[in-house]
């Protein structure tokens, strides 16, 4: 039997969840014995080259590219897992959800103290190559169907490891109190 294939991505996240994935320490050697990685920042494969079994999603959706990547993951992965607060509820990027998008852009490119004199033509990013920002930041499960959720900021390495092992072996996942935290 061929190895199960894992893909990972970071959407509107800080890569902290991927750091936590690396925090499984020497078990990472065990993990690469168990699975093969496809599209992921860890091996720098940019596009899916084959159908994957598990997709790990870090971060929520703040722009059109995030939505595109997320839908691509849904198409190419049998099981999708949201991991980290940003993927689950928008996280810190979602702090902007109460502020109209125009005000956000104006603050970032026109009125902010560090930009106020450096953008004389008052240009806002507007190029087909640049992803469009969404009206607000969305949790992943409000965009596509997500199968499992791993909370935490970041999710504890033990939680990620136990969840992956449970899925790969088909055993029930035990959730000790200490590993499921929102911060």
């Amino acid at each position: 039997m061929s190895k199960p294939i894992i893909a990972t991505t970071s959407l509107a996240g800080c890569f902290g969840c991927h750091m936590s994935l690396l925090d499984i320490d020497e078990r990472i050697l065990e993990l690469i014995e168990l699975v093969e990685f496809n599209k992921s920042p860890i091996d720098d494969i940019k596009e899916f080259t084959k159908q994957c079994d598990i997709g790990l999603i870090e971060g929520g959706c703040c722009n059109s590219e995030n939505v595109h990547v997320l839908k691509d993951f849904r198409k190419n992965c049998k099981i999708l897992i949201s991991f980290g607060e940003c993927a689950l509820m928008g996280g810190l990027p979602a702090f902007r959800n109460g502020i109209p998008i125009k005000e956000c852009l104006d603050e970032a490119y026109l009125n902010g103290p560090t930009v106020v004199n450096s953008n004389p033509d008052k240009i806002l990013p507007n190029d087909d190559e640049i992803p469009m920002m969404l009206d607000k930041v969305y949790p992943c499960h409000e965009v596509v169907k997500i199968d499992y959720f791993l909370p935490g900021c970041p999710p504890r390495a033990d939680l990620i490891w136990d969840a992956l092992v449970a899925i790969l072996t088909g055993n029930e996942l035990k959730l000790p109190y200490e590993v499921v935290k929102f911060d």
Partner: protein
Amino acid sequence: MSEKIKFTIDDKECFAEKGQNVLDAATDNGIFIPALCHIRGVKPAGACRLCNVKIAGRLMTACTTPVESGMEIENDIPEIQDLRLAIIEMLFVEGNHFCPACEKSGNCELQALAYRYQMMVPRFPYEFPVKEIDASCPKLIIDHNRCILCKRCIRSFKDENGKNIFAFKKRGHKLQINIDEKLSANLSDEMAQKAMDICPVGAIIHKGKGFDEPIGTRKYDKVPIGSDIESVV
């Protein structure tokens, strides 16, 4: 000597003083019923609805129901536990609860209940309501994003002169707590900390405090909320 009355919770025989409410009586018998608005000794409000139990087939809030002799109460049954989880999830989606950025994280009762009931993600869509932060008081920050309108501060907090400084303003979905500008200006640090501790979430924050307890040593990092009650008996 007062007379004890007998009743059952999930078929466990319990005893209580006459006139006690179901929630306090359950606590005295080592049974945890979750609640975000109840403070022992303060007149119950029945605001958060988390303490719902089933008595004679009907859902009743345990904090506002006096215990009676022979009462048969259902508490730890799937129907009620799911109802409680749904209420917790609703509280999470109808406010802006950014746990990773909250000073109360780890000591927050709403978060602790979500841990206890193993909330992974709410079943309801996030509302992301637009709410304000009121930092006008010199000692306190009122963050309406996190307020769950439990009325704990209104019902139980008084300043050094015995005056209420919290009250509700507006109505319906615009309802919010309000702090008396003049009275709150004279709060001592001690009282400000007391106000912060009364709040079950992070809606009342003592200015200049926060993030001073390392992760792993906070109230609900290692033990679930309610385990102190359950370990007594």
